[in-house]
């Protein structure tokens, strides 16, 4: 049985994504953790590309790896965070493990219910699927309200951050 090129790419990318995601939480150095997170986000962008969602893929790179992760690294370097000298206490680790397990099982339950066991591979996509036009049409017609609410939320967050930062300096 031969695999299509897309499937080979998928498994390689998925493996890298999982490994780097593990590195994010397991590596003792915060800078390396942030770099591993960047790698994970890039792999997710490639997965979007494999799903013909070019716009989402490049927005993912632009927003997450191009801006947010740069700020992460910026803060880590500004605070001069070093390698963790000793592991956190056992109670803390157990608590986090429980929380993480809960979240993982919730996500797993959700995905198992939502996604049919075998995805229909032969489903035909529209010619402009994933293109800017198609995305904009859905975003500004079907989801116009949630789009507006999200932008107001972001605006509130920005104003809140500025207010908090101002209070510190006075």
């Amino acid at each position, binding site marked *: 049985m031969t695999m299509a090129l897309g499937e080979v790419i998928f498994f390689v990318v998925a493996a890298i994504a999982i490994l780097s995601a593990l590195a994010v939480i397991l590596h003792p150095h915060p*800078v390396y953790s942030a770099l591993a997170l960047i790698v994970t986000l890039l792999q997710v962008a490639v997965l979007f590309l494999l799903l013909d969602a070019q716009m989402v893929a*490049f927005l993912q*790179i632009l927003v997450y790896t*191009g801006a947010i992760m*740069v700020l992460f690294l910026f803060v880590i370097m500004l605070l001069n965070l070093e390698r963790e000298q000793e592991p956190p206490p056992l109670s803390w680790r157990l608590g986090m493990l429980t929380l993480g397990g809960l979240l993982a099982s919730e996500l797993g339950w959700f995905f198992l219910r939502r996604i049919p066991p075998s995805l229909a591979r032969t489903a035909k996509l529209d010619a402009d699927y994933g293109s800017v036009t198609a995305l904009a049409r859905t975003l500004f017609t079907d989801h116009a309200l949630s789009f507006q609410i999200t932008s107001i939320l972001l605006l509130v967050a920005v104003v809140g951050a500025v207010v908090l930062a101002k209070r510190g300096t006075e």
Partner: protein
Amino acid sequence: MGLEVGIAAVKALVVVLITLQLTVLLLWVERKGSALIQNRIGANRANIFGVMPFNTGLVNTLMADPLKMFTKEDFVPEGADRLLHFLAPFLSVFPILVTFACVPFGDELRVGGMTISLQVADLNVGILYILAVASMAVYGVVLAGWASNNRWALLGGIRGSAQMISYELAMGLALVSMVMTFGTLDLQTMARAQGSGLGSFLGFGKPVLDWLPAWGIFYQPFAFLLFFTAGIAESKRIPFDLPESESELISGYYTEYSGGKQAAFMFSDFAEIVLVSALVVTMFFGGWQIPFLGREGFAFPWGGRLPLPHLVIVVGQVVAFLAKVFFFCWLQILIRWTLPRFRYDQLMRLGWKMLLPLALANVVLTSVVILLAQ
């Protein structure tokens, strides 16, 4: 299938080689150009064994300099993070070179029944791709600064990341107004849209203003200024070279680099100059378009026609594109050797309090005009 992959590979190779050549050529132009501006002679000790009949400064920069750089000792400071210190130069060069995949350097070449688009990758999100990949270049700067275990380098890296994020916003917003004007994110479609006369493009009818080509600069002059300024800031050169300002930070983020890796950082700066020029040319100066030159030949608005063979047109367009790109490279070098460096607070004020609001205002203005024109 095999032929298509082969053609794509050849196109990619050609684009990378052109970029490399332009970049090294710019190094020479920078030396001779700065000498011209400062009333010096410039690189002139380049006669091989004294037997050449003329000054071979160009050859010196193109061959001897890279050879010297790559045979120098590759120094890694004590206490540096060896892996990231090694990776940083590559992370700085690679994204810039990859962005050229979306820049169209000509229209279509028709050879023996085949149509070859003179653009490596035809993405419908071209501009987004370029912004996304170019934004990855900041990691080279940040990691170089951090991995060097040097305070000046760290300061340079932190300055670099703050500066590049700040100016990316203004750059992106300037592009948004261009995207709204052309109604596409694809650079090739943008370049094609600039082929008509200005009057026809704006809908005034044929006779009015058709003496001017429909280049982006004529209807988005503010976007051009904003994009060009932000672009120069992104390439981290004077007046925006705070990340490497040698009078405060030795060499900033690449203080602890030597030999080939230091050359890689210099190279990525020059490649960014070429990239900014290519984008400016494609969006604001018609890309590969030559005014009045259509697919059959020249068709002048005052009625003359001059048919030309297909191959001449294609070659002419590619040459026109390269000439325009070179002009803007030269303009950036001229700016670099003319202006003094900004202070850091001035840099941040320019980015956040001037360029960003102006770019936003330009977006609003553009959308109002587009709405009224409908």
